């Protein structure tokens, strides 16, 4: 995920957004609106929350089942959302915690 997208990617038949073939497999990002208490090494579920109308990608602590943040300012977020809607699963691991900045790696599967 990420990188330069100066134009829409070429479509391969049967490989539209969310079909699995162009779903991101791994990317790093920073958590938006992180809850307190997130620790390095924690695993987070990546899910879609539609409670406010617009789909929002949220991060759920796998132990407490609490929402601990969301993703924003991330390239190709629309593709990630389509992938999640199509059943592709993602988890994130917390790489680094520095005050209010939480670095995570999001992984498919």
């Amino acid at each position, binding site marked *: *995920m*990420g*990188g*330069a*997208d*100066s*134009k*829409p990617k070429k479509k391969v038949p049967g490989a539209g957004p969310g079909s699995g073939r162009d779903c991101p497999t791994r*990317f*790093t*990002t*920073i*958590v*938006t*609106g*992180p809850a307190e208490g997130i620790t390095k090494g924690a695993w987070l579920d990546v899910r879609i929350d539609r409670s*406010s109308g*617009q*789909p*929002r990608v949220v991060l759920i602590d796998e132990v407490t089942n609490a929402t601990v943040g*969301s993703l*924003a*300012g*991330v*390239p*190709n*977020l*629309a*593709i990630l*959302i389509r992938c999640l809607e199509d059943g592709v699963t993602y988890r994130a691991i917390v790489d680094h915690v*520095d*005050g*209010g*900045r*939480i670095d995570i790696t999001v992984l498919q599967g």
Partner: protein
Amino acid sequence: MLIAGGVYTETCVTPARVTLLGSGGRAALALLELRDDIELHTFHPSPLEQDVKLNFEPLGVSVTVHAAPCHYSFEYLHPLARPRIVPLPNQDVVLVSVEANEVLRFGCLEGDFRVTAKRAVYDPQSSTRPVAFGDNGSTAERLALVLNVGEICRLAGEDDVAVAAMSMMRRNRATAIVVKDGPFGAYVFEEKEPSPRYVPAYPTRSVYKIGSGDVFSATFAHAWLPGAVSAADAADLASRRTADYVESPAFPLPHVATRRIAASLGPSRRRVLLVSARTATSSRWLQEEAAKGLEDLGTTVIREEISPGQRGSHAATEGEFDVVLILLSDINSAVAETRAALTHGKSVVAFADDPAILGAIQMLDVIAEDDLCSALYRTQWIST
């Protein structure tokens, strides 16, 4: 508040970051904790419109995307490096009119916003080809400009910042002008004020420079546009919140800016002795990047290269510099080189991205940094 600005992909190699923010997107996120009426107008290719909306609308930002032919990426090697812009910007830009009581306008690559506002803040966002606010027909009853030293000198065609600011104030009919000067703070020129007010920078333990100007402009606009706060006080709040951002570049920013001690402004720009090994290409590259970054911060750089077998030899003499920056890359010689740097009797900042080197020098009286941008800024803020 209406924010008119670009949303771009920004990549940084070290520290590794990939974001979809740009000035407009970052300004919107910077104000999340301060207000709930943020309206973002930006440009993007129609097929990618949803990508912008899905990133910002769930956070309460109202987004209007104006169609543009391409999406731009800014690629940085490190936060003080000059970015590579992909693709090369086109000269034919889209002109879009926006109207609101309060507007924050940024200069954009793919288009231009013609603003009609009661109160506006304009950040031209270009050190090479800045454009004046009214050049595209924009109007505002009260206008503040936020620029850095390079931008205002180019726009005004003057080398003296105070002369340039007065010239720009007249030409733009601006009420206030904020001239940012990196780690040294900012100068605020206000209508009816005989002399500019200095607003300090607030030193932080780390510096992620990409987007710092966006956060500054957004916070300044939030505080100044309603009219109850002077431009100088608004700039001081902006400087404090920018410090919060560069230290921890994640959103939302704290509702109340962290208490910090202001940087003291010395009588003249610092002279930094840049010490590095004369060995591999990577060391030479790092030396060049560090020198370029320091010069961009307004510093005079004196170089000292350490040849193999000549650890600790000093080319410069006492009193010729204020601070030592040493770039360390060899675990076997790091301690000896750092001790030699300390013999100058000056404050020393050491950069190494190898944790083993940082561990080896931790007992020495130096500021050790594993981030290049932070190390360069620390040379400007460290006590001398």
